[in-house]
């Protein structure tokens, strides 16, 4: 049996969900027999491959770059999981939504900055007006809320998917977690 | 306590309070007099300020927050002083169908304020209404309490200019 091709990414998030994923600890070895990480911040792969079986999306969609990456991942994946509160609800990144993009940026790069004091113009992705959850852009197959989702829940969800079962993580985790 | 007493004397002396006090007395200072009393305050003073709300709450033995809650629930009451002149544009169904939103936009552009606001010189308050029952005359606009039917953007602006220049 060929290994399940898994892609993960973090959009506008803190990487905490990925850390929780790593907290599966020794069971990662068990998993590694069954899965193959084809695209992830944890592996050195620059382009999104085709034929992904499962994509785990951490983080809210906040910039054009986030949006493009998400659309590509969706197009190339069979199953897509909204992974963690930022992806499911926009969570903390969404707290900027009642300020304008300009106000948000000036707060960070001008008011609270010791040097430079100018808005970034190059090499920083352009922010979209609102940070939004993943499912507002693409079809999401499963939602895994939690900030972060507990390692056990991530593990059991993956196991259930590997066994061909339909996972129902909401009974084991929740918003905020 | 003395300060409170002084306040009371001041209140008694002011003629405008007589109508308010009379309303409360007529209702036996019962809690259900609240809305009628607020009407009386607004009629006398043009709006409800915090001091009068406090006075009413005190006189009717009602909690402050309850009085404030009632005063802000009903859109007829305003907690901000109105301008010298008022222009109320009806946004009821008939007036809406007859294009009252365009009139509203024209007025907003002319005087630079949004509905519910008063010009910085205190001359004009712009308000909107939910039907004044003059649907047969749509679109209707009320200038200083007088209903004008079958208005148009030009006619409204003319009226407003007349109101604003009249006092100069």
């Amino acid at each position, binding site marked *: 049996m060929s290994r399940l091709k898994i892609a993960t990414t973090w959009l506008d998030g803190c990487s905490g969900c990925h850390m929780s994923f790593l907290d599966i600890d020794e069971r990662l070895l068990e998993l590694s027999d069954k899965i193959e990480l084809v695209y992830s911040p944890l592996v050195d792969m620059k382009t999104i491959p085709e034929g992904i079986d499962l994509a785990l999306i951490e983080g809210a969609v906040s910039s054009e770059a986030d949006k493009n990456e998400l659309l590509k991942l969706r197009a190339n994946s069979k199953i897509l999981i*909204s992974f963690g*509160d930022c992806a*499911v*609800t*926009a*969570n*903390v990144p*969404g*707290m900027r*939504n*009642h300020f304008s993009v300009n106000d948000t940026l000036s707060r960070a790069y001008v008011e609270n900055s010791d040097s430079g004091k100018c808005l970034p113009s190059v090499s920083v992705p352009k922010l979209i007006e*609102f940070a*939004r*959850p993943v*499912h*507002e852009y693409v079809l*999401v197959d*499963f*939602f895994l*809320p939690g*900030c972060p989702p507990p390692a056990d829940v991530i593990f059991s969800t993956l196991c259930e998917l590997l066994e061909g079962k339909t996972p*129902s*993580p*909401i*009974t084991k985790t*929740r*918003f*905020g*977690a | 306590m003395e300060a409170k007493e002084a306040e009371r004397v001041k209140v008694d002396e002011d003629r405008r309070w007589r109508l308010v006090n009379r309303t409360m007395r007529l209702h*036996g200072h*019962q*809690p*259900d007099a609240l809305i009628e009393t607020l009407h009386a305050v607004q009629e006398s003073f043009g709006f409800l300020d*915090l001091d009068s*709300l*406090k006075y009413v709450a005190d006189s009717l033995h009602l*909690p*402050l*927050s*309850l*009085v*404030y*809650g009632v005063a*802000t*629930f009903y859109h007829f009451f305003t907690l901000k002083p109105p301008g010298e002149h008022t222009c109320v544009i009806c946004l009821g169904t008939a007036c809406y169908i007859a294009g009252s939103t365009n009139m509203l936009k024209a007025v907003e552009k002319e005087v630079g304020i949004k509905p519910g606001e008063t010009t910085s010189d205190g001359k004009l308050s712009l308000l909107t209404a939910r039907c004044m029952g003059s649907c047969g005359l749509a679109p209707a606009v009320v200038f200083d309490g007088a209903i004008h039917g079958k208005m148009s953007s030009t006619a409204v602006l003319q009226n407003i200019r007349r109101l604003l220049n009249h006092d100069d």
Partner: protein
Amino acid sequence: MRYPSFLQRTADRADVQPVRVLTFSINGVTVSAREDETILTVARQNGISIPTLCHLDGLSERGACRLCIVEIKGSPKLSPACVTLPRQDMEIITHSDRVMDYRRKILELLFTERNHVCSVCVSNGHCDLQALTVELGMTHVHYDYLHPQQMVDASHERFSVDHNRCVLCQRCVRVCDEIEGAHTWDVMGRGHLAKVITDLNEPWGESTTCTGCGKCVQVCPTGALSEKGKSVAEMTKKRLFLPYLKLMRGEEER
């Protein structure tokens, strides 16, 4: 004109009969109850849990959150269990797919209304709203978030109110009025612009009526009202005093 506006109608009505006991069914199981007990009470007595939010034992009922709606056979309308009295031979269904679906959607609406960011909330882990997502199996919100700009009032020396997390259940308003008797809290405005206020919409810390008893904080279902200086783990709400206070007050009045 003379009308008895000062009278709250008391129980001295001539037509009041002794309480009857009714039998009816909940989810197909026959149950019996006093005619003055609500469907919610009877369901709980029989181990059936109906989700609630604005309801709290010891406070008056509002029937406002609509999460406890149940189906009654023969009626096209859904009835809130917290205020509906059973009738003889009524057939009540508490967890049909239809009401569960509605409950989830109503809960989703609540999450869109204000800024409920559970991960950075003092009530994370002991919040009634958060618990409801698990109870109702709400995995995500498929309506648009409204992201309103809401304020935090931390002017009180011991408590703070965060309007971002308020669900307008009015438990604070009721406990302050009905149990503490201070009526510091009420609601101003209406519709989605409604907001809980202290006194004349003044900072809580400057309230002249607040006794500082903190009952409002204890009954608040979310992190909207909290005690200052408490960590997330410490900020649990203690509500057991309510039925007791209510009972004692009832005795006194009798």
